């Protein structure tokens, strides 16, 4: 059990890392999709597409790793979560279908472009919203009996989960706006900073609301956050979050897009830490812990070898790709 304890905890951290990487990588490009209706048809939208066309596919692969990794390391959690959030998973996947094909399809027929632009923004919004609602649905607790989901097919819907859904949409929009600010010059950049400010305030509001609501979802969450001595250990989390928000606003005011992007990511990281602290050690609150959901030790150790050997390579060539396509985008399409 002790051996299993270590390995399973490592796998929980690896999956948390995959989710974080997904937010880092795909958050901004979904965010650009969410902001797409606010860009003018023509050059502005083409530029927005060019800012992500060479990297979106790699970004989305982190979501496949999240799904595949969950199946491999915590098969029971994979089985329960995907059943419990069935309509959300379907909506997310179909949203990603629309936005994914739009990257290529919008260049293929001029008269269809308006439609594929709508598919791109609509698909991005639905995917982001679904991901956020899945997060909320997980936190508010999933009804499990035996080894299977035992709730209805709309149990996930609640004011809390809608709130987390909107929070993720706002957060992604913030990341997307910061990314665009780094990729554009002139009036396009001005507009990107404006979008970032609006999205930042919306994100702060959503984070504050989620932070206030979460401890009251269930007694264990409340005790974790408000009982001594955990209150002391955890108090830096909200303090650092507040500071990050202030520096983010300052970065936007000073037009430092890189600083703003990093701080927006820091906000996501802190949000994840906060929610992770609430859930720990459950992977499906309130009943399934990471150890109950864990794959056999042989499965986890076999994959750990792969992660340790291959992940540095993945990070290396992904970084190289971003380096190749660094800098401001031109006005001409990639097609």
């Amino acid at each position: 059990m002790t051996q299993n304890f270590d390995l399973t905890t490592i796998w929980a951290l690896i999956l948390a890392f995959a989710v974080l990487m997904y937010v880092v990588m795909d958050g901004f490009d979904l965010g650009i999709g969410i902001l797409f209706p606010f860009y003018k048809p023509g050059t502005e939208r083409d530029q927005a597409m060019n800012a992500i066309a060479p990297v979106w596919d790699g970004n989305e692969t982190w979501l496949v790793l999240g799904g595949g990794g969950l199946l491999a390391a915590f098969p029971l959690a994979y089985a329960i979560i995907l059943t419990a959030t069935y309509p959300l998973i379907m909506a997310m996947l179909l949203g990603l279908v629309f936005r994914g094909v739009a990257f290529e399809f919008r260049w293929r027929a001029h008269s269809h472009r308006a439609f594929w632009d709508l598919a791109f923004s609509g698909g991005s919004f639905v995917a982001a919203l679904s991901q956020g609602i899945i997060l909320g649905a997980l936190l508010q607790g999933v009804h499990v009996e035996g080894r299977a989901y035992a709730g209805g097919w709309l149990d996930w819907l609640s004011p809390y989960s809608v709130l987390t859904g909107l929070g993720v949409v706002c957060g992604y929009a913030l990341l997307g706006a910061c990314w665009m600010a780094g990729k554009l010059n002139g009036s396009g950049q001005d507009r990107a900073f404006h979008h970032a400010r609006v999205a930042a305030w919306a994100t702060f509001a959503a984070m504050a609301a989620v932070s206030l609501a979460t401890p009251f979802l269930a007694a264990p969450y409340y005790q974790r956050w408000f009982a001594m001595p955990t209150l002391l250990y955890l108090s830096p989390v909200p303090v650092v979050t507040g500071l990050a928000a202030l520096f983010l606003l300052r970065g936007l005011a000073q037009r430092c897009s890189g600083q703003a992007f990093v701080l927006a990511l820091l906000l996501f990281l802190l949000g994840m830490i906060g929610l992770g602290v609430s859930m720990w050690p459950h992977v499906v609150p309130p009943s399934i812990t990471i150890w109950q959901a864990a794959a056999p030790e042989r499965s986890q150790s076999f994959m750990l070898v792969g992660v340790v050997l291959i992940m540095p390579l993945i990070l290396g060539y992904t970084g190289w790709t971003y380096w190749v396509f660094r800098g401001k985008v031109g006005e001409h399409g990639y097609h």
Partner: protein
Amino acid sequence: MFTAFDALTLARMQFAFTISFHFIFPSFSIGLASYLAVLEALWLRTGKPVYLDLFRYWLKIFAVAFAMGVVSGLVMSYQFGTNWSVFSDKAGGVIGPLMAYEVLTAFFLEAGFLGVMLFGMEKVGRGLHFAATVMVVIGTTISAFWIISVNSWMQTPVGYEVSADGRFLPGPSWWAIIFNPSFPYRFVHTVIAAYLTTALVVGAVGAWHLLRAKDQGRENGHARVMFSMAMWMAALVAPIQIIAGDEHGLNTLAHQPAKVMAMEGHFQSHPEGAPLYLFGIPDDKTQTLHYAIGIPKMSSVILKHDADAPLAGLDSIAPDKRPPVAILFWSFRIMVGLGFAMLALGAWSLIARARGRLYTSPWLHHAAVLMGPSGFIAVIAGWTTTEVGRQPYTVYGLLTTAESRSPIAAPAVGASLLAFVVIYTAVFGVGIWYLLKMMHAVPHPHEEPMEPDAHAPIRTAGPPPEFAK
């Protein structure tokens, strides 16, 4: 609305629909990535601009096909949990790590280097660009390796242990699980199928443009090069594929005899040599093959290399463990029939080539155009054969399909199935129309690259200066 079907049937329909639509794209992009690498290598080695033009022509098509493969593949990685959660829970410990390795070793590699392959020629230079193309090729092949290993383990499960609560646990050797008995055969057969499918598409596009050029009284050198390359591929690979398929069939006979019985239409046992049925109307209810036309003892010759060798029929299998014959009998014949048609096309092209009429034989070109989609049909028919032939199990002989299903009610499964059917048909229908439109565009000298800078007005009149030779 969905009362006619139970949740199990709907879940199976959803998987069959989403996987069939998905597999069209990788079976094309696995082959096309390799073709692009060959074209780029030929260009780098010979410096002939025709290879660069063809590379750019097919690269645009590859980009669209690849995008559709990515998004439809993402759906697949979640299908296991949404509709088959009990299967995921029970088999996740064995197949999960293989799929995680697919993500780590293949998906990241493909996706990471795809951007450079599509858009990066001017940014990274020729050598690194070629390296990126090769990485994408390696990625597509590794991806096929892992996912076919997973599928093959479900067909011929070995190397596992079963826990007290009925879950499959990996045994001491992952090697045994990955290289399970049917894996090498299925992997070879599938990858060759992807190459052949691509060759037939490239050949059809080349033939199409040769026919058009002839109608317009001109020559198209680019169409000639792609047609010639594709016909070499078809002529060389179609016979290899038939041999590989035969070996795969013998492997199936050894491990999943009921599947072969259904493919052959052998409802009854034949103790003194079994006939090879060429035609018949299988009736699963009465377990008979109506209007059967067959060659006596031929099936025993093919499967046992002995005309009088006894072959057991489905009557030797318990009724609730038989796969449905009606689908298998026909899907198998469609695949084999198309395989022999491909062989014939390849042979025809060799004869035409020997007589110096490869580019001037309109009948050959019409036949090549007609055979353009045949690879896709054969691939879908082949997968239908192996997957339906695994029924009534998900993990062969151990876990039934009915036991594998999620506790999701029929209306939810049906509604999502309906959404997939409507959206896939619309989105991928339009996508396939775009692909056909791009294939209809005449391949020509100074094919435009995908890089943005080369779109600047000054360059549209010719190739970017660094590529002009």
